């Protein structure tokens, strides 16, 4: 009982801190990093519902992200439709897309399902490149001027600073967490996990496999599409490789793998590791830190090599991280942490 109270208190504390953060942190760069974090959490949590809980490991989730992003951006550019309306068009579109994809892919199992999910996403990406009349093809869609958001004639925000995006991102991340939390505690969660553990046994118990897989997919797809729409209006630019590419699908999966699949906070942990790491490596922060701390002299051979190459090497480090996690921490960080606490409890006894 106290454990749940403690958990709830901790959660509220963190939430409270996040809500007031923009007051004290006015650096747009820092806000940008938080927004990237929220985006990553949303992506990871969305995938988690289908991949982590239902055990359907889609490596083509970029398809849903892209549908959300493109629908919103296309409507904004072509007809000046405000994004908060366009977002719902994106949701509608992605439900259709998800059901179609589901009908194709769910007949397949294991590695074949994975391959089919990749093929479908690639078909969407290539179509986006070729249907230039619709999507502007490889040139992408660039819309950086957002209309002001008004309620009853009063302007709430005109999106000039990052602060509104911060709160939208936070809301989205919280939404995905809430949905996951709800699923965990509902019959739906039971059905999903039964399908994940042993599809045939679940079927013999009378669980309607196709129905629940599709429910899981639609929920996951809708949340991913929301994240996609958010990405589109925040960054202001979408093109096929960025929002429909295989790299994105892999990255989304990575968040859950590193954090821990099928757990409530796994994607949060995964994001907390990946987002800062990626940015720290890409910019020269790591090298600068090493130099400042005196570990490496700026003029030494090591220093120069690091300065010139560490930024390029961030993808290499990604790869190494993936290999290490898969080999030594297959349950992800959540699994690792759980292992630590259970060991401590054993020792206490």
């Amino acid at each position, binding site marked *: 009982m106290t454990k749940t109270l403690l958990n709830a208190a901790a959660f509220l504390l963190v939430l409270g801190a996040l809500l007031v953060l923009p007051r004290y942190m006015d650096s747009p*760069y820092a806000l940008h990093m938080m927004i990237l974090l929220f985006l990553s959490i949303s992506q990871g949590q969305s995938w988690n519902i289908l991949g982590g809980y239902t055990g359907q490991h889609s490596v083509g989730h970029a398809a849903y992200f892209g549908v959300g992003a493109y629908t919103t951006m296309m409507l904004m550019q072509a007809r000046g439709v405000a994004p908060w309306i366009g977002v719902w068009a994106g949701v509608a579109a992605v439900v259709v897309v998800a059901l179609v994809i589901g009908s194709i892919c769910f007949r397949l199992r294991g590695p074949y399902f994975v391959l089919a999910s990749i093929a479908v996403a690639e078909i969407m990406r290539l179509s986006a490149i070729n249907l230039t009349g619709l999507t502007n*093809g490889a040139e992408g869609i*660039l819309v950086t001027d957002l209309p002001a958001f008004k309620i009853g004639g009063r302007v709430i925000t005109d999106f000039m600073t990052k602060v509104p995006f911060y709160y939208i991102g936070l809301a989205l991340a919280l939404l995905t967490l809430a949905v996951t939390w709800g699923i965990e505690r509902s019959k739906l969660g039971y059905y999903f996990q039964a399908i994940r553990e042993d599809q045939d046994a679940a079927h013999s118990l009378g669980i309607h496999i196709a129905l629940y897989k599709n429910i899981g997919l639609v929920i996951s797809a809708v949340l991913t599409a929301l994240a996609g729409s958010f990405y589109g209006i925040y960054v202001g630019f979408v*093109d096929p490789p*960025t929002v429909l590419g295989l790299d994105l699908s892999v990255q989304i999966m990575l968040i859950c793998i590193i954090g821990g699949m099928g757990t409530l906070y796994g994607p949060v942990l995964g994001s907390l590791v990946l987002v800062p790491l990626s940015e720290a490596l*890409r910019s020269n922060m790591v090298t600068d830190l090493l130099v400042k701390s005196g570990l490496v002299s700026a003029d030494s051979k090591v220093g120069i090599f690091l300065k010139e190459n560490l930024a390029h090497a961030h*993808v290499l480090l990604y790869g190494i991280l993936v290999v290490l996690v898969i080999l030594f921490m297959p349950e992800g960080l959540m699994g690792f942490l759980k292992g630590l606490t259970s060991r401590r409890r054993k020792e206490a006894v």
Partner: protein
Amino acid sequence: MRKHLLALGAVFVLSPLMAQKIGVINSMSGPEAPIGENISNGIKLAEEDLIKKGIHVQLVWEDDTGKPQISMSAMEKLATRDNVAGVVGPYTSACSNAVAKLAEKYRVPLLIPAAAKEEITRQGLKHVFRMNAPADRYASSLIDAALGLGKPKSVAFIYENTDFGTSTSKTAKEYVAKKGIQVVADEPYPKGAADYRSTLAKIKSKNPDLVFMVSYVADAILLMRQSKEVGLQPQAFLGGGAGFTTAEFAGERAISEDVISCTQWTDDVNWPGAKDFGKRYKARFGKEPTYHAACAYESMMIMAETARNAGGDREKTRAGLKAGNWNGIMGPVRFADYDGFTNQNNHPMLVQQIQGGNYETVFPAPFATRKAVYPFPKWK
């Protein structure tokens, strides 16, 4: 009292020596890195020359890996966290277009060295400046050169289906329509495709007078190799992309001879210091510079000087860029408003042809060093 005066005096004396912070956004890793490297090298040479002139710059390098959204992140960081006086870069059209709006929003002067997409300087953005001639010049200079040499009536387009390939060929298609040349084939291809033979055979069956290609280096070489294999024989091969202007391409003697391409710069053009730049670059980096290196060099020279004269103030730097004119390895440079462009340097494109393994400028007349070979000779 004297101590204070001394300190004050020191500040006045030293402030011109204080380094100006200038941001650089470039594609240093990722698929665009091979050409991005030229930009980095050009900037490095500029850094050295600036020191010789007594101008110290502190460069903040940002790698955008060729992706527009990372480019935007980088610009955010430079504008709000590093407080740079100005930014030089990025490289690709897609990245430049995305970053331009941000530069305007944060009021940071941005000098784009080599991005082709016209739209970038057609948006009325006061803080965005471009050194190189935009894509419409690529098209017009090549087509005009061809029209000056013969009477081509038809053209086939083959280009990579990226932002660069698509936008450059789009402009070219509009231009040929104006000039009454018919488009008989329009083939975008995915980058990294191994085999263009069937596409080229298809183009061959349409018998185009001109073949207009937009590609980077590796594709350019493969396209020409396979064109030879298939026996595609137009009046001219027009290379509208960076791939057709590199030393590597020229080095493929069997397939690159007599290919016509357009470039922003060559080392034998009669602009001050151009030849020396070429020599210095080769000696220092072991290979010939592409035009990107020259564009980047001159962009950095101009940005650094202007920032220094403005004392690092962004608005003054912007005003300095708008008002100034220079004459360096890129020839006369002035950022003007004309024909719907804002802050665009009205740079002449040079049309060159590979003859005897070397790039020879053949058009326009004031810069031409040789006569062009036209039509394209029969494949051996």
